[in-house]
């Protein structure tokens, strides 16, 4: 167990909580956005996690590696919210005001023209649309492994999921992304001229 500062222990819980969590909130938001694909949903997810954690401030003070622990809490909260949504008959057709949140925007994006920034924007939308096609578990494992760099062994602990299951989830997710994201332009950067 790491040494715990007596100074911290005597401070108000809100101060301790803020000291611990403030450096993590942007990370949690980034992760939440990759899970949900929406700014509003990501903010809500992070808010839900913070609300849950505040009463556990004392416990947080004693956690050695806070970030992986928070990642697990966020992931569980995300899975819970997905399950609640799945029980609802409401199907979202069009998402928030930011076009990039909407996978349907991928089609108009193809008409953006040759300008590099427009192409980048079009590709971004294509990638978002492809990620949208993954189920929540696939999306989470791709985010945590391929983007955030957690090893599968670390994820085995964080997600409390067997290694074999994680490998197969990751494999299926990547396969799906490769099918959804065409060879052009995603392989262009790897080419050698001539």
């Amino acid at each position: 167990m790491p040494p715990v500062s007596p100074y911290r222990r005597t401070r108000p819980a809100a101060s301790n909580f803020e000291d611990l969590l403030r450096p993590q909130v942007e990370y949690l938001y980034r992760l939440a956005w990759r899970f949900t694909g929406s700014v509003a949903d990501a903010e809500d997810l992070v808010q839900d996690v913070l609300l849950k954690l505040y009463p556990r401030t004392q416990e947080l003070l004693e956690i050695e590696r806070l970030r992986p622990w928070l990642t697990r809490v966020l992931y569980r909260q995300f899975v819970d919210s997905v399950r609640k949504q799945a029980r609802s008959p409401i199907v979202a057709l069009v998402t928030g005001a930011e076009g990039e949140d909407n996978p349907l925007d991928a089609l108009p994006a193809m008409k953006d023209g040759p300008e590099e920034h427009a192409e980048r924007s079009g590709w971004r939308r294509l990638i978002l649309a492809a990620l949208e096609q993954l189920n929540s578990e696939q999306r989470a494992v791709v985010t945590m492994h391929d983007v955030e760099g957690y090893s599968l062994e670390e994820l085995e602990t964080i997600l409390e999921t067997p290694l074999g299951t994680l490998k197969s989830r990751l494999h299926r997710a990547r396969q799906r992304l490769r099918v959804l994201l065409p060879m052009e332009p995603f392989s262009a950067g790897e080419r050698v001229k001539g």
Partner: protein
Amino acid sequence: MECRDFALQLDDWLDRRLDSVRQKSVQEHLERCPSCRRQHEHAVAVQRAVRELSPPAAHPGFVDQALLRATRPAAGSAHPARRAVLGAALAATLVLGVGLGVFLAMQPAPVQAVALTLERPETVRLMFNSAKPLKGATLSLALPANVELVGYGDQRELSWQTDLREGANLLELPLIARGATKGELVAHLSHGGSGKTFRLKIEIDNAGRSDM
């Protein structure tokens, strides 16, 4: 190594999880097989594209507000500030919605009645246009006699907690008529103390029934 074996080992190769023998074997195969090389390049490029996708910024002040909400003594209920804002937005939308038709639109609009055929499942779609995201809205349904929501047996009253996104939200109701009815389907949407009730007339088309 065959191309088929390469495809099976591609992910382990990308993750550097192969032992030195298999690693060498993959490397040699890549050097002599242009097709697998392209496949590998594509896989690397897709992985990089996903990794480089940067999230849009959260709303200004989000970090401060989120921490403040979490540490407030009265923060027992989720998103107090946001809920209050959304509640107000819904109330305003409801008022405007009546006059301007921005809150609810039927699809196909403006039909307010739907015909079902006896014993034949049919999906009725209602489109809810919400001016703002509404988190934790409650949707209640009351079905007329002899009409069932597929999968819910003879339950006449159903309720869900749901989040409405900004813009169009589709409610799909697979309905089946079990007998004659002249009733209405009543959908009630509520959020933050405000609510609105929508009524849809259900008519039964007997064409599917041979004895009628």
